[in-house]
């Protein structure tokens, strides 16, 4: 079993808590978060509807050669409706390109530094000694498994 089997699975509860806080918030919000919440109110309908449409299209697309037409067609209709929601409720700021480019730049810089940090930490771990050679019994066992898998009758 690899480490992914023991990885903590907190992502879904965390996302649910974040959405609940956003939807069921009773407190008055002041700036700068007020501006953000107004943008999110315009953005969220498009985002959730479009994500649902994309999921349906993906599940209805031809995997190997089979197409699921109900999911595929409803997915494309939902995607088209989502863009109506986007242009109806969402307002792009005047300098949206500047914001998009330079925010991405900051995020990419952060990601690059994170990669360097992980590399630094991983390089500090000393290498383990090489594994000992297989015993006669282990060699027989491995040969038997490979023979079975490649279809050679090992008798």
């Amino acid at each position: 079993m690899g480490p992914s089997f023991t990885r903590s699975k907190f992502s879904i509860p965390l996302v649910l808590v974040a959405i609940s806080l956003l939807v069921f918030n009773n407190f008055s919000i002041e700036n700068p978060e007020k501006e953000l919440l107004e943008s999110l109110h315009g953005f969220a309908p498009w985002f959730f509807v479009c994500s649902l449409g994309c999921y349906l299209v993906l599940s209805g697309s031809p995997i190997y050669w089979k197409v699921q037409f109900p999911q595929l067609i409803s997915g494309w209709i939902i995607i088209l409706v989502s863009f109506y929601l986007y242009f109806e409720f969402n307002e792009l700021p005047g300098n949206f390109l500047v914001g998009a480019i330079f925010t991405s730049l900051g995020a990419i810089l952060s990601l690059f530094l994170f990669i360097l940090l992980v590399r630094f930490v991983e390089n500090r771990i000393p290498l383990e000694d090489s594994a000992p050679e297989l015993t006669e019994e282990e060699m027989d066992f491995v040969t038997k498994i490979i023979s079975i898998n490649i279809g050679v009758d090992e008798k």
Partner: protein
Amino acid sequence: MNSALLEILYYVFGGFILANFSLIIFQLFSLHPYSKPTIPIVVQSLFIFISALAVNSLNDDLETITDAIRFSLVEGILGFIVIIPFLYVLMIYFLFKASFRKRHFDDLLDASE
């Protein structure tokens, strides 16, 4: 300082702080026996603190470091809200291609069902 340049710096610091926060949360919430997140988390927290100090010194309206972090996170999220539709358009292009592709019939895969 020029207001356009200030705005650019706020967006860069916003994206930087938001991504660092996201990566810290990711490391904390996906812990496994082989992960070693202590050094990255400490250094990233330091990056956030230094960036917040820089934003605080650039913006006179912000009184504390916490205000600077809140302001930067809002700028970062607003920037990402603009980027996400463009990424979705790209994804929809690939979904469009995937919807109309034709694969050859495979006897072997058909027999496995």
